[in-house]
């Protein structure tokens, strides 16, 4: 399991977000360090949906937050529009310069109810970013824009605008969160488990809205989830993470039809209705995820991996190409 290596990076003018060698560490007391994200690299093309999938504790949310510099990564770079003259390195920016770039990358969170201020009205919640942004764009009509995004996510602005979050259900609150993120016309929308807290019947509504919004506002999505079937549905490209490292990256079809990394295969076999490309017995691994304070040497997945050998303990695998737009970091990948 390695994020080391950058063979998976694409060299295209279309790349809108590039993350290179991202490292996120947190102090854990007693001079110990939590290695939450270690050397992760990936890129996202314009109009693409990148899915990030993995168990809890694998660093997927930390990666998402590092993209928007909340908090700033320990090392590594996050670059917007890397292939063009207008490239912006978020990791280099500070203060006002960073603030002025922030509208381009917006985020929606898992729990729709706690991510909205219960004391404010919907129109103020959705319009706040816009009102601040307006200082630099005086020609924007805040009320009209709030109405536009609220109706875009399927809420009636006349009814909804003057209400407060407690008057809405979880699914409606998530629509409000999406409207808030869209109000200032972002290029990239980072969705951190946006449907995990919702009922199955409402989940499909939100997923469809995200697809519609992506088309209507020309968005690029980074979509984080632990649910493989949801990630499969929304993503063009998928990153599988384990304990702060990238196991496998590939376009959605290749990765789900020919999973090469043993961990990806475990995930696919563990789903309630397992994928047909893997054998159900492949889900048999231990429950225990090693501590990110003291991760295993070599490949981080080796302690739970059915194929692990001594090589895996001594040497960290490097990203290798398995097929067109399909990369895996494993010494013993499955070959189709």
């Amino acid at each position: 399991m390695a994020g080391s290596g950058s063979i998976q990076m694409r060299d295209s003018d279309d790349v809108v977000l590039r993350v290179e060698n991202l490292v996120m560490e947190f102090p854990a007391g007693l001079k110990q360090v939590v290695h939450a994200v270690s050397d992760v690299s990936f890129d996202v093309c314009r109009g693409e949906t990148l899915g990030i999938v993995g168990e809890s504790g694998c660093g997927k949310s930390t990666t998402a937050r590092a993209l928007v510099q909340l908090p700033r990564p320990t090392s590594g770079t996050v670059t917007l529009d890397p292939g063009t003259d207008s490239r912006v390195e978020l990791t280099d920016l500070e203060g006002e310069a960073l603030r002025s770039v922030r509208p381009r990358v917006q985020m929606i969170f898992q729990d729709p109810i706690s991510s909205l201020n219960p004391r404010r009205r919907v129109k103020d919640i959705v319009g706040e970013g816009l009102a601040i942004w307006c200082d630099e764009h005086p020609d924007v009509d805040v009320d009209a824009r709030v109405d536009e995004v609220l109706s875009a996510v399927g809420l009636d602005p006349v009814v909804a605008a003057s209400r407060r979050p407690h008057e809405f259900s979880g699914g409606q609150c998530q629509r409000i969160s999406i409207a808030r993120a869209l109000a200032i016309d972002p290029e990239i929308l980072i969705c951190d488990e946006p449907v995990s807290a919702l009922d199955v019947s409402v989940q499909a509504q939100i997923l469809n809205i995200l697809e519609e919004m992506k088309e209507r506002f020309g968005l690029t999505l980074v979509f984080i989830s632990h649910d493989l079937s949801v990630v499969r549905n929304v993503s063009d490209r998928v990153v599988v993470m384990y304990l702060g490292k990238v196991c496998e990256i590939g376009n959605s079809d290749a990765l789900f039809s020919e999973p090469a990394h043993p961990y990806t295969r475990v995930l696919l076999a563990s789903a309630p209705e397992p994928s047909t490309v893997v054998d159900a017995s492949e889900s048999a691994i231990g429950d225990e995820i090693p501590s990110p304070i003291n991760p295993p040497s070599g490949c981080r997945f080796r302690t739970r991996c059915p194929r692990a050998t001594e090589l895996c303990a001594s040497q960290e695998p490097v990203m290798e190409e398995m097929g067109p737009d399909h990369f895996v970091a494993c010494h013993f990948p499955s070959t189709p």
Partner: protein
Amino acid sequence: MAVPLLSVADLQVGFATQRGLLRAVDGVSFDLAEGQTLGIVGESGSGKSVTAKTLMNLLPSYARVDGSVTFDGRDVRAMATEGERHFWGVEMTMVFQDPMTSLNPVKKVGEQIAESLRVHLKRSRKEARDEACDLLQQVGIPEPKKRLTQYPHELSGGLRQRVVIAMALACSPRLLIADEPTTALDVTVQKHILDLLDELREERGMAMILITHDLGVVKGRADQIMVMYAGRTMEQADTATLFSEMRHPYTEALLETIPRIDMASHTRLVPIPGNPPDAVDLGPGCPFAQRCRYCSAACLVDQPGLDQHGDGHACACHSPVGTEAGAAAHVSNLETGVTPAGLDMGTFTAAVGETA
């Protein structure tokens, strides 16, 4: 089914609120035979957990309960009023959703497992500890001796849920109720826990009620499935029949709305429009009518009864899927473009058209 182990008839549970009576469970009936698994499926607020809590006598005293619950010929509700405490935890036990909150954080796991053995079965301290150690082994916890002396925070989510299962099994219950036992766990762990429950059930010949919001979870595991919505039973059948001859529009909608791993990327999902109804103010008709594409005029005024469709397959619907009435209602709704409940059929046709 010969003699059911558990028989629930016309169970009603209500809570008085300021806005009126909230009907959490409304006329639920089912039978469960020894060694069988019943899957109860539904969204949040459908009454599945309240049903489980009623069986376990865990409802607050202000809940208004009506109907009968019989376990092996004994009246469970009468036992509740008589304070018969050696029934729950011995013959009928429960595993809850969140293993962190269902364990006591300041007691060692060994003591927590031993507690029910000491209280209910009057085991000595040493016997109880030895049995607890055996139980931990049975639920697949490595180094059980060492784990006995640990506190819940020292264990991972999967191990904690195994401890909770060990606690539930301590007195060899005849019925285990598992209320969303894996919702708080990772996918990789979820499968292990469900497999474990299945194995233990088989070994011990125990009956099980598995409550979940995911039809996929019960598909391969339950013998019978009951689909609940707004406190009512929508459809009830053995598992194979339910998946092959689905009758209720809600069951069908639930299955269609979930993305599957083998679907191509960007397959447009068929959502269930709208939101679940307000349980305080359900109105006269079918609670699902507002969101249903098979809705007919009768659905708005007349609450459908649970009709039998043969082989114990019951469905509460005026125009069930796969019948003439259902097809007729669907065609007529497509022609007018809106259902009698005022739902635009376009929300469905657009979605279905793109998937095809």
